């Protein structure tokens, strides 16, 4: 549904988006991750036809956004960053305006408004003007606008920004419910959101894609993926760490805490020389050494750690 090919956007001397390519099919939910100013919004604005790209192309449902903008835009529902809305209009007036521009008239328009209002829980504020709404309602009003024509492609710039935890949960459910017959792209800062709702995630940093895969694949890139966590009672940490470190497949060990003879240790696997049975090997080691093992488990990677390691802030990377 969405095909993005070597997209670039330059503002003056600043390269905001540099050679970004990806595609999203129907049924996929693509999470767009990246630090602030990485180029997420700029990319989305180019896909929705708000910014013309400096170079590269965007195709939505087979229509090029520059050559057939109207046909492409018809397929897209868009929730811009900060969920803008006309301050002096009522929620109903605003949705009615959006429906009209989407070519919905008469009964079809009524049904569309009704459906969007129901989906976004706006019944209570339907005839309130937008500038009197709380942030959550304002956000949902703009979300309703993007869903009003039941678009095949849904692009949302931080759809859960400024919502309370319940509302966030609702929006995620909504995305999941809609996902089977739409192509969805959304950007977020919240990593659990990606794990929960996305079938694929792209991490973008300083305008370029630095990672692209399923949440599980991305997590596997974490240094901690496959690490073995131990909680045990032993006399002193040094011998424990030493014998763990000598095991094949362990690249290094970490002492997480030590108190009253109780240790928490993590053994980080060597990705280049993996040991498929690392957990079992460690278990056997502990019984040989007569450690009193309280807990042992294999860790899955953590997305936030992957995120941090590939999108280090400028100050760190400069060194």
């Amino acid at each position, binding site marked *: 549904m969405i095909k993005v090919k070597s997209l670039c*956007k*330059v*503002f*003056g001397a600043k390269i*905001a988006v540099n050679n970004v390519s990806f595609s999203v099919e129907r049924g996929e939910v693509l999470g767009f991750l990246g630090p602030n100013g990485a180029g997420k919004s700029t990319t989305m*604005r180019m896909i*929705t*036809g*708000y*910014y*013309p790209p*400096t170079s590269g192309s965007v195709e939505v449902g087979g229509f090029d956004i520059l050559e057939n*903008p*109207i*046909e492409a*835009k*018809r397929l*897209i529902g*868009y929730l*811009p*960053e*900060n969920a*803008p*809305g*006309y*301050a*002096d*209009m009522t929620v109903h*007036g605003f949705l009615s*305006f*959006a429906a*009209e*521009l*989407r*070519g919905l008239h008469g009964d079809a328009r009524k049904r569309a408004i009704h459906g969007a209002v129901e989906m976004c829980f706006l019944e209570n504020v339907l005839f309130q*003007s937008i500038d009197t709404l709380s942030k959550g309602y304002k956000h949902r009003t*703009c979300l309703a*606008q993007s869903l009003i024509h039941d678009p095949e492609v849904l692009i949302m710039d931080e759809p859960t920004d400024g919502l309370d935890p319940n509302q966030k949960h609702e929006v995620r459910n909504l995305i999941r419910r809609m996902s089977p017959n739409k192509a969805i792209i959304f950007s977020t800062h919240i990593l659990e959101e990606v794990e929960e709702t996305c079938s694929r995630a792209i991490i973008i940093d300083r305008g370029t894609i630095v990672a692209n895969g399923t949440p599980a694949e991305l997590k596997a890139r974490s240094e901690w993926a496959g690490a073995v966590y131990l909680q045990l009672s032993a006399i002193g940490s040094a011998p424990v760490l030493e014998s763990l470190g000598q095991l094949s497949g362990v690249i290094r060990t970490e002492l997480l805490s030590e108190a009253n003879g109780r240790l928490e240790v993590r053994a980080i696997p060597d990705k280049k020389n993996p040991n498929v049975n690392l957990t079992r090997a460690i278990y056997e080691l502990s019984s040989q050494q007569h450690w009193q093992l309280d807990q042992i488990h294999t860790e899955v990677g953590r997305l936030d750690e992957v995120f941090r390691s590939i999108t280090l802030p400028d100050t760190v990377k400069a060194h």
Partner: protein
Amino acid sequence: MNAWNNIKAIMKRELGGYFTSPIAYVFLIIFLLLTGFFTFTIGNFFERGEASLVSFFTWHPWLYLFLVPAVGMRLWSEERRLGTMELLLTMPLTTWQAIVGKFLASWLFLALALALTFPVWITVNIMGAPDNGIILAGYVGSLFLAGAYLAISCMTSALTRNQVISFILSVVICLFLILAGYTPVTDLLMRISNPVVVDVIASFSVMTHFEGFQRGVIDLRDFVFFTSVIGFALFTTGVIIRSQRAG
């Protein structure tokens, strides 16, 4: 057909925007009070002793100088300030349709304000027997004058998210369009340069072209002038909006 539906949707929203806020009512009241004041007090409507609306129309270029930019200043500035421009321009419509829709809505609003001055017309018809053809021509001219100012305000409004800057810029441009053909200024120019140059400069002025309408002369050239000012300003609006997004 589709284009017209989009333009209609934009117009409806814009007009609704005027009337749900106090802008419309404040504007209409001030406009009517000022036209009355200028016509009857400063324009010496009664002392003239003639059945015409000359004293009414003479003031329009000056009155519109401040009132029309006040109507037009929000057209695009507000969209940029609220961020709704992104929403509007990612809808399936062309930038053109949005520009024309907004312009027509505001023009219609100004036409309504102008139509509400009908008591002046009734007054002059009760008191004497004016040439209503001349008056109609005056109204048509006034509407086009307002349209030209409005298109310029539309253009300056696209330049900035700040309505005050947009207002001041359009007042300055409109003032220039007045002064280029304002008699005291042309007299002054006449003394320092040759008449051909002065004529060329004056032909850019709304005063020169509005004058014909006031005398009841509907000249094609005056129409062409006002429509080209409108066309040019709206075209420039489109260019400005496009260039802002191009980065």
